[in-house]
């Protein structure tokens, strides 16, 4: 499979703009009569994490009387525990409210977006269901990496932006400076920024008015055949998959037989709902409207975000643009935790328990992949692919929290393309799958465009960090007098390896980053084999850059040396590239394991002790003559070496 065309935040997807916003210039009076009597505005809120997006959403619902004070529970739209805890919106929803502006009734469809870079594709789909977006910036934090990334994504999608400076009630608020940053970095006029406190409600009515006034009306139908964009899908225990749609052309009714143009599946619509934000059953959705459908879909794997829904009986000629298969960039293994690790937690720690949990979670989140993996060292588990690092963490947490299993996660790797001497290419995401070196012409790895926003004083250290991670300097710009944007290109493999923690520590928490995959690029990548007494241990092999191979190998060997018990003989630990040894360690022969005292009162206890040793040894993995415990493998494979 060839690599997917890379997405770039910095290269606006122009074709998208042309298609979806066709014929809908801002507040075009000539177009207005074509629409239904009610004016419609479809919009999203975009922001860097923790800049107050969810609070603002709540406040908007309240101000339109969609939710009373009493009903308002904090962050209404985020429904999962995990989202609340992390303050991240993982899955989008759409809410319809009404607002009267200049005597006219406006239907406002608020489309929630995922809040993290890993879900950039989902964000882009949600945004393409909108004509406008509210860009929220925290008045105490200023423009951050995801502010920029999201803003570019929205502009790239042809959306009109309303810049909003939030949290102006805080003592540390500096709205003027933040407005200047917005102008400097995003090119949105500082004077257009609206000052808001989602907490106190200040500026909220002005914002509602501005949404009606400034955001474009949806474009009219360009065809009478149904075309609706799937911008999100969620799994509901009672109703199966709930598919969120934005109708671009035609209309959709309950009972319609529909076709997913991307997957080719046909389904019958059993119900249509809108959210106000309480579920409201409706009979149909018209052009420009937003809502959800149920169609007896049992798993999220059957629905693709970005797909186009049309009528099976009268299908559209062409799907809406922008559909992509989700692409997993980061991979790791999950194994059931064994022995001591799960004791006392009441969680399951067996493979079958893990399988159930993974399958159940996949119904809810089809964007991760999984396949059964058998490791000689760790037994049965799953190799899983994720959109990014955060996605990986979320899946692990959900497996443990919702699935009730205790898992052990191996260090993440990226996917590689291997160009073979016969002219073909294969994709691998496990060092063990690398073909014979003689057949390899080149190994290509994913490269990201990285954008860091940080205090000016940290620029030097961050440049050193990026350079050490094989980065290529691109640009450096000022956000304000005290902060800068640093652009780099560097391999994804270098980011998943302890990069974010380093960034945070260098900038004492003030730095933020965002990245997007831009291409696959060849580099001097090598497979490092780890050998225990000359036996290769496939589970421990890794792919890394030739220049860092020694360092990485030494780290692994040092860990291994501490984890393997002494044996009757000296054990050689080696790392090799091809046949060449690049690092070595040794474990001295065991000198002593003897029960010094064994008298009458000791017999039972000593026997049990020895039996325990024997049982422990039985559970160990034999690499040649060497016994290695699963715990030892875990310690080496565990994240962060």
């Amino acid at each position, binding site marked *: 499979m060839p690599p997917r065309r890379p997405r770039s935040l910095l290269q606006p997807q122009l074709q998208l703009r042309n298609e979806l916003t066709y014929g809908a210039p801002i507040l075009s009076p000539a177009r207005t009569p074509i629409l239904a009597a009610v004016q419609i505005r479809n919009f999203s809120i975009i922001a860097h994490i923790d800049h107050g997006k969810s609070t603002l959403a709540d406040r908007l619902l309240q101000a339109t009387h969609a939710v009373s004070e009493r009903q308002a529970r904090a962050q209404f739209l985020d429904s999962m525990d995990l989202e609340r805890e992390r303050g991240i919106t993982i899955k989008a929803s759409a809410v319809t409210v009404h607002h009267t502006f200049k005597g006219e009734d406006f239907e406002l469809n608020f489309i929630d977006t995922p809040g993290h870079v890993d879900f950039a594709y989902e964000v882009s789909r949600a945004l393409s269901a909108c004509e406008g977006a509210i860009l929220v910036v925290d008045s105490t934090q200023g423009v951050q990496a995801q502010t920029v990334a999201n803003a570019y994504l929205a502009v790239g999608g042809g959306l009109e932006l309303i810049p909003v400076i939030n949290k102006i009630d805080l003592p540390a608020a500096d709205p003027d400076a933040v407005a200047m940053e917005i102008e400097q970095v995003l090119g949105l006029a500082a004077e257009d920024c609206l000052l808001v406190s989602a907490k106190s409600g200040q500026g909220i009515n002005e914002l509602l008015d501005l949404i009606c006034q400034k955001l474009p009306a949806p474009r009219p139908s360009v065809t009478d055949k149904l075309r609706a964009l799937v911008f999100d899908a969620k799994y509901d225990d009672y109703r199966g998959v709930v598919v969120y749609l934005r109708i671009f052309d035609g209309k959709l009714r309950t009972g319609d037989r529909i076709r997913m143009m991307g997957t080719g599946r046909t389904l019958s619509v059993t119900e249509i709902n809108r959210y106000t934000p309480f579920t409201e059953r409706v009979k149909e959705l018209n052009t420009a409207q937003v809502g959800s459908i149920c169609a007896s879909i049992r798993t999220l794997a059957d629905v693709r975000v970005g797909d186009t829904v049309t009528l099976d009986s009268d299908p559209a000629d062409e799907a809406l643009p922008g559909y992509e298969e989700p692409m997993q960039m980061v991979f790791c293994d999950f194994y059931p935790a064994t022995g001591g690790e799960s004791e006392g937690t009441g969680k399951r720690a067996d493979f079958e328990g893990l399988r159930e949990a993974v399958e159940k979670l996949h119904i809810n989140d089809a964007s991760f992949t999984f396949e059964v993996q058998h490791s000689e060292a760790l037994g049965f588990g799953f190799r899983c692919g994720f959109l990014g690092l955060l996605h990986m963490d979320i899946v692990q947490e959900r497996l443990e929290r919702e699935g009730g299993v205790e898992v052990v996660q191996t260090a993440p790797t990226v996917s590689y393309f291997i160009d073979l001497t016969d002219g073909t290419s294969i994709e691998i995401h496990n060092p063990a799958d690398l073909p014979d070196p003689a057949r390899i012409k080149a190994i290509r790895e994913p490269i990201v465009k990285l954008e860091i926003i940080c205090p000016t004083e940290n620029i030097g250290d961050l440049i050193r960090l990026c350079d050490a991670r094989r980065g290529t300097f691109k640009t450096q710009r000022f956000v304000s007098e005290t902060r800068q944007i640093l652009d780099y290109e560097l391999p994804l493999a270098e980011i998943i390896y302890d990069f974010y923690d380093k960034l945070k520590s260098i900038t004492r928490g003030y730095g933020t980053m965002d990245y997007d995959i831009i291409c696959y690029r060849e580099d001097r990548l090598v497979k490092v084999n780890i050998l225990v007494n000359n036996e290769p241990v496939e589970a421990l092999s890794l792919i890394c850059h030739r220049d860092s191979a020694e360092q990485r190998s030494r780290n692994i060997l040092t860990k291994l040396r501490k984890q393997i018990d*002494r044996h*009757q003989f000296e054990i050689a630990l080696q790392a090799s590239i091809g046949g060449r040894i690049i690092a070595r360690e040794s474990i*001295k022969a*065991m*000198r*002593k*394991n*003897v*029960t*010094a*005292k*064994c*008298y*009458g*009162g000791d*017999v*039972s206890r*000593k*026997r049990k002790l*020895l*039996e325990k*040793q*024997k049982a422990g*040894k039985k559970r160990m993995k034999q690499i040649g003559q060497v016994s290695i415990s699963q715990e030892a493998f875990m310690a080496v494979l565990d994240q962060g070496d």
Partner: protein
Amino acid sequence: MASLPILSSAARPGAAAGAARPTVERILQGARPSFRAAYAHVPFCSHKCHYCDFYSFVDSEDRQERFVIRMESECRAAAALYQAPLQSVFVGGGTPTMLRPNLLARTLSALRESAGWGAGVSAGPGEQNASGTSSQPREFTVEANPDTVTEEVARVLAESGVNRVSMGCQSFHPHLLKALERTHNPESVPLAVERLRNQGINNINLDLIFAIPGSSLADWEADLQAALKLEPSHLSCYGLVYEPNTPLFLRRQTGAVLPIEEDLEASMYELARSTLASAGYGHYEISNWSRGEQRCQHNLVYWDNGDWFAHGPSASGHASGIRWKNVPRLTDWLESDPWSLVQDVESLASDARTGEAFMLGLRLIGGMELSRVAELLAQPGGARREAAIAEALSSGLLERSESRLRIAPHALLVSDSVLCTLL
């Protein structure tokens, strides 16, 4: 106070307040033991050492006399179980010599009578066969803290027929004794040896401990030389064991105590082997050396997987596959008269018995007779053990001569590797 046994007894389901615990008499019903020895535990100590996991404590109320009265009744009861005079009686602790001399004498007298050795005073080992009713050599051992061996105690021991004394020296270096929280004065050891010899007790064992935190190879060599200078008939040299539930163990856990390097400990052991060999001591068990034939007959019963009776709180006994441990609390033991309540009892399946026979028998430097090995391999699990033996022979951990199977001398320090495969 050793608090753990109490905790573990409380933790046993249904063992509340000892009500459900059987007596020794009960658990031995139906068994056909042939007791060859008796062990008596005297729990009193003047001080609790940090490495010690034996049941012992500093008695705050004087219960010595009650202890002795109770011991006398247990001895009378046990005598009925013995089919022949015992081969050995071993009085350990705690510190048996903490008993006041008259009480010590009564205890020893009761044990001697119970063993079938008659009421009369038996003298040194030379007279054993002449005065005894059995042809078996009789060994009567008492453990002693060197500080407690006064002339009076030495006389009581001799007059009671004790012919062997085992003394815990551990080290002759004050700083190492301090590391173990031992309170005795190293200079009291030669004095105690002299007092015992003056009373005709010449079979004397000295316990030494090596691999004490902070010790060097030179320290250990000096300890060995100091011990040899006293010309004991028997030496036990133990690598320090960090027993769970001891203060020493906890201090290692918290990092307050740093164990010495494994390689240094191994060198210390090898040093003991070579030094004692050239001094004329025969190495006969992993941690034990003797001059001539003066091996510890009592411990040989253990390693031969023989039967012995257990007296006193927390003492353990073995009766043809039944291993038991008396209740550990002095109070509980005093109240169950004449048969002790049993804290733990294990009736071993034949496979476990076979495993134990190997685990114990191969501790002897001379190993096990091939006929005995063949006998054990004829039991269930024989094929598995035979394969394990073959593997250990080929890797050089075991050696076979014409008549015996033993752990190879170079592999003694890693003997657990072999023993665990034979369980």
